[in-house]
């Protein structure tokens, strides 16, 4: 085991990692920026070190600052949390070069899974379905028509050189295809200087389902079930739950088992999450793997009783997993609500200010992971996540009832939060029926959910 761990992150996850270190009896140093001098993690820490100014590029995103901080405080490992440096394989490599351990997959594993395209190829070869697409680039109109016919409409035309959704066009019929390809080519040529296009099947009204895996250094891996993260706004998850209401028990187990088999075969190591799009027919298509602890990991912890952060640290220290798939029991239902400092009534505008009053909810199955305290000033430099409320119940209706009670109890004065949208969704029939899709909140508009709940 490590003797001392540098926590290279902030907010609620810095507090969460600090707690994991204490549970393991490992010393921890909280690395913080000038803007986080008053943060809860710094206050709770036995040792803390200022690594740079508020600007994340010079603090939480600065590999030299973090590694230097680890060295001067005598740490032998760095926990990157999520975001910031957590998925930077270059950082992991430099950490290793300084004889420190990166808590996550080893650099060579991160490198193997760094490119989404390569990862789809690697895990596709291990039996995971990926989103159907054209074989290579589209040569001409005839080739485009043939490929679209084979994949099945609707299809998405994507520029090879693009990214982040730029220059894509969805087509529902062969008649639209020809002109759309022409437009996409000229757009791609002017935008990226490369007019190669390919096709991908357009999945309408899909759900986001992800499988949590843990694999030790000895190739012993287990899955910890899945999570449903279909409640999103502009691709940002804000409610996550498990089990997914989208799939029956057999389908869930099958998906999780295929996922763990594929990643073990591909040589993955440490905790990880495989993200899938699930279509209306229940087909799951692999999209990407997240090689880090995720924001929504407590959902799985509530269901399994397994501490994912201590597990992550133990695996990075070279310890064997210590439990097998048969030991993993998924009990009941858990829902996580991301509490953000943002105004749902005004297009989710981020809000900053001082927390004048803070009261945490409680009761059976209620957990809150947060860095909030009364008097805390939310700095304007980072994301708007204030904390996560995680509620467990023996079944989904009980978890929902407890969630409504907990959200009612939660008091955060001085800031505008998104609690109202959570309450609205918990009373919405689409959510209650377990039929949320990733595009629903954006399509319907958060305002409509709020208005419907107010009636």
């Amino acid at each position, binding site marked *: 085991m490590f003797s001392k761990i540098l926590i290279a992150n902030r907010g609620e996850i810095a507090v969460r990692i600090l707690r994991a270190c204490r549970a393991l009896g490992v010393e921890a140093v909280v690395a913080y920026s000038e803007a986080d001098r008053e943060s809860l993690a710094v206050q709770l820490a036995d040792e803390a070190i200022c690594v*740079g100014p508020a600007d994340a590029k010079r603090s939480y995103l600065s590999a*030299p600052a973090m590694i230097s901080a680890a060295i*001067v405080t005598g740490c032998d490992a760095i926990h990157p949390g999520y975001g910031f440096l957590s998925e930077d394989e270059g950082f992991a490599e430099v950490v290793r070069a300084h004889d420190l351990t990166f808590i996550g997959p080893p650099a060579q594993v991160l490198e193997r899974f760094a490119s989404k395209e390569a990862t789809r190829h690697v895990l596709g070869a291990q039996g995971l379905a990926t989103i159907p697409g054209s074989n290579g680039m589209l040569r001409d109109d005839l080739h485009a028509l043939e490929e679209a016919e084979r994949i099945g409409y609707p299809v998405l035309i994507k520029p090879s050189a693009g990214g982040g959704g730029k220059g894509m066009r969805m087509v529902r019929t062969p008649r639209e295809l020809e002109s759309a390809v022409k437009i996409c080519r000229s757009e791609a040529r002017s935008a990226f200087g490369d007019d190669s296009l390919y096709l991908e099947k357009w999945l309408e009204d899909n759900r986001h389902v992800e499988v949590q895996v843990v694999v030790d250094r000895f190739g012993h891996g287990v899955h910890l079930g899945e999570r449903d993260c279909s409640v999103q706004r502009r691709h940002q998850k804000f409610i996550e739950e498990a089990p997914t209401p989208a799939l029956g028990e057999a389908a869930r187990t099958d998906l999780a088992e295929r996922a763990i088999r594929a990643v073990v075969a591909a040589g993955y190591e440490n905790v990880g999450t495989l993200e899938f799009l699930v279509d209306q027919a229940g087909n799951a298509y692999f999209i990407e793997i997240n090689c880090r602890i995720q924001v929504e990991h407590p959902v799985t912890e509530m269901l399994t009783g397994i501490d994912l952060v201590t597990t992550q640290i133990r695996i990075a220290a070279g310890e064997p997993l210590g439990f097998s798939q048969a030991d993993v029991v998924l009990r009941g239902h858990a829902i996580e609500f991301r509490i953000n400092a943002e105004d749902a009534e005004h297009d989710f505008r981020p809000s900053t200010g001082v927390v004048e009053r803070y009261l945490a909810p409680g009761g059976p199955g209620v957990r809150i992971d947060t860095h909030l305290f009364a008097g805390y000033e939310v700095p304007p430099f980072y994301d708007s996540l204030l904390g996560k409320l995680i509620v467990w119940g023996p079944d989904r209706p009980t978890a929902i009832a407890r969630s409504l009670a907990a959200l009612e109890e939660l008091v955060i004065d001085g800031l505008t939060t998104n609690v109202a949208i959570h309450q609205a969704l918990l009373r919405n029939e689409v959510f209650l029926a377990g039929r949320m899709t990733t595009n629903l909140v954006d399509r319907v508009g958060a305002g409509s959910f709020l208005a419907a709940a107010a009636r």
Partner: protein
Amino acid sequence: MPARKEAARLADHRQILGLADDLLPALIAKLGATGLAELEVSEGDWKIRLRGPVDGTPGSGRAVGGRSSRAAGGHPAEPGHLDSGRSDGHRPPAEPAGDPYRTAATSPAVGVYHPRAEITSGSRVRAGDRIASVDVLGITQEVIAPVAGIVGAAMVEAGDAVEYGQELVWIELITAPADRTGREA
């Protein structure tokens, strides 16, 4: 400020600068070396009083000038390592309101502190002068004098680990802040 003749003011300024050049560096070095809390010297119409760092431990190296360590939960400082739990969230700004006569040069990064051999207690520096460096994974980051003045007591020692923004060395101001000039005379 009382109305004074321009010539008298200029004469005063010349005298102040003369004192600063001749006397102050020696006095500051003396103060740093002896660990005295205060030194007072009179010459002609002028009286100069120098005060050491507020907790009276000039040059002792650590937790000086308001960087209070947390009382509970801290570990004893290891050699070459940072004091634990130093961030109690109440660190005063680099120029404490109560002491307008000096300003601390702060660390530009987290790393290991190296003073420059030619810059010692008593050296005269201009704003922007490189007075020391912090080694960050083998890359040198310069510690810059924030104001013109005389290098005073150091709050860290060569080879100490320092964090970003940490106060390293006092710079004693040669001229008092503008609003005080003249009033002291």
